């Protein structure tokens, strides 16, 4: 059923978009891909499983817990592994990237150690509730995921364009030096950015757990690579590009599974990377200069 697949695709796509937003915010401000973002997302998902499944907390409290935990992880990531490398003489510009890879390995193995390998089910009371609209079956979970994603995207856009802190973030993303001579404490803004991005990753983690009803220590790597594909597709550091790219990837994966060969599902993201790099290396919304972030 076309409409059902469309709804599935949009649900998946909006989660991808949120993951990609986390990547794009950090890339905009720091100029690096945060390879630990996928694993922070995974930790967020596990916090959701533990709080709802083991502790029996309500869903909203699970979200709150996940946001708190991933925000702290974001803060530690910046303070302990990124800031010490910034602006130091003799430090390669690749060093922070490698540092985030280190953190991603650490987090994956830590959760492997704590939770064991394999998938953990994510139970929510309304995972099975669905409504029939004519011929179309819609799960409540899908509506919740979609609504949360939309609220996050709109909220972030408004925050970036209308608030003082959001403008300071954009100024810092365009030019750190310029932002600093305008009175922006760029250290604070960078920390804030990594925290916000990580919290969004945590939210996305719970959403994925709800959508697929399972989480595993390895889920961070897969989603991380897809997030990377999305921001290459949309344009590095571009907020609009992350949203549109996420939806595009979610829709194309869903339609491939429904009407094509599901074995190729995870290949789509990488086919997209190859095509976009050949045809339009700056991404759909990127410009050749640093503009348009």
């Amino acid at each position, binding site marked *: 059923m076309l409409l059902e697949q469309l709804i599935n695709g949009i649900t998946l796509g909006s989660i991808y978009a949120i993951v990609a937003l986390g990547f794009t915010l950090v890339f905009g401000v720091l100029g690096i891909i945060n390879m630990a973002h996928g694993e922070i997302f995974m930790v967020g998902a596990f916090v959701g499983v533990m709080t709802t499944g083991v502790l029996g907390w309500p869903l909203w409290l699970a979200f709150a817990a996940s946001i708190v935990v991933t925000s702290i992880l974001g803060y530690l990531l910046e303070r302990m592994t990124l800031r010490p490398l910034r602006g130091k*003489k003799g430090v390669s510009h690749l060093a922070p990237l490698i540092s985030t890879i280190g953190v991603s390995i650490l987090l994956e193995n830590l959760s492997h150690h704590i939770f064991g390998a394999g998938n953990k089910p994510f139970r929510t009371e309304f995972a099975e509730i669905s409504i029939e609209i004519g011929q179309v079956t819609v799960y409540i979970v899908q509506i919740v995921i979609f609504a949360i994603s939309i609220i996050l995207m709109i909220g972030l856009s408004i925050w970036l364009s209308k608030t*003082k802190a959001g*403008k*300071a973030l*954009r*100024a810092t993303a*365009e*030019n750190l*030096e*310029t*932002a*600093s*001579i*305008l*009175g*922006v*404490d*760029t250290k604070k803004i960078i920390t804030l950015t990594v925290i916000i991005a990580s919290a969004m990753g945590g939210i996305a983690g719970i959403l994925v757990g709800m959508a697929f009803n399972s989480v595993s220590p390895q889920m961070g790597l897969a989603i991380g690579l897809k997030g990377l594909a999305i921001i290459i597709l949309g344009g590095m550091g571009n907020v609009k590009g992350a949203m549109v790219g996420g939806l595009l990837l979610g829709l194309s994966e869903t339609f491939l599974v429904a009407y094509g060969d599901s074995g190729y599902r995870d290949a789509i993201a990488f086919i997209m990377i190859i095509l976009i790099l050949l045809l339009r290396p700056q991404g759909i919304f990127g410009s050749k*200069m*640093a*503009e*348009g*972030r």
Partner: protein
Amino acid sequence: MLNLSNVETYYGQIQALKGINLEVQEGKIITLLGANGAGKSTTMKTIAGLLKPKNGSVEFLGENVTGLRPDQLLRKGIALVPEGRAILSSMTVLENLEMGAYHRKDHAVKADIENVMQRFPILHERQTQMAGTLSGGQQQMLAIARALLSKPKLLLLDEPSMGLAPLIVAEIFKIIKEIKDAGTTVLLVEQNAKQALKIADYGYVMETGNIIIDGKASDLIVDPRIVEAYLGRKSTSEQALVK
């Protein structure tokens, strides 16, 4: 108001400033002249906190401010309009102006932005456009207007006339004079030595990281060493024109 003593600034192993002593008095325009690569921009960046001096000290309003960050120095009243203007090109003209008043918490910001846009009507006209779409002269006006919105006590201008048409250059110098008359002290770096000395009260001349000459602007403008090195070719061509 501002005092640099024995300031030495390095880029890695390369020493760009070799012990600068410089004084800026409140209410004046001080100009800093010198050939390309003399260290003028390095001096400005050191004052604004973008570079940290290895030796020496910077004192502002009687307080030692050596090594403070740019955002801290802005809060103390030092604003820099850097070489090349440093417009936020992916933000609108209005957002650039708002960023100028970023650190202010008073309620006059909105009115001040209105006033600035009245002084520079082009900024009012283009307020919703991306700042990157402005012409060079307009971007310079925006950069100056933005810096003024922080209500600085000391305004640092690094080659504001660079790359602009003569008519716009004249306008920029007029604006600098107005800024001084409104009570803001100005430290001005210029290639255009003659025009700079005309509006300045005092001048310094740099060469390879040192200050080699300083004096009243009215003396410097007739100083044979300066005329020869910095005003020479220009004034002879002007004389040729007169003849």
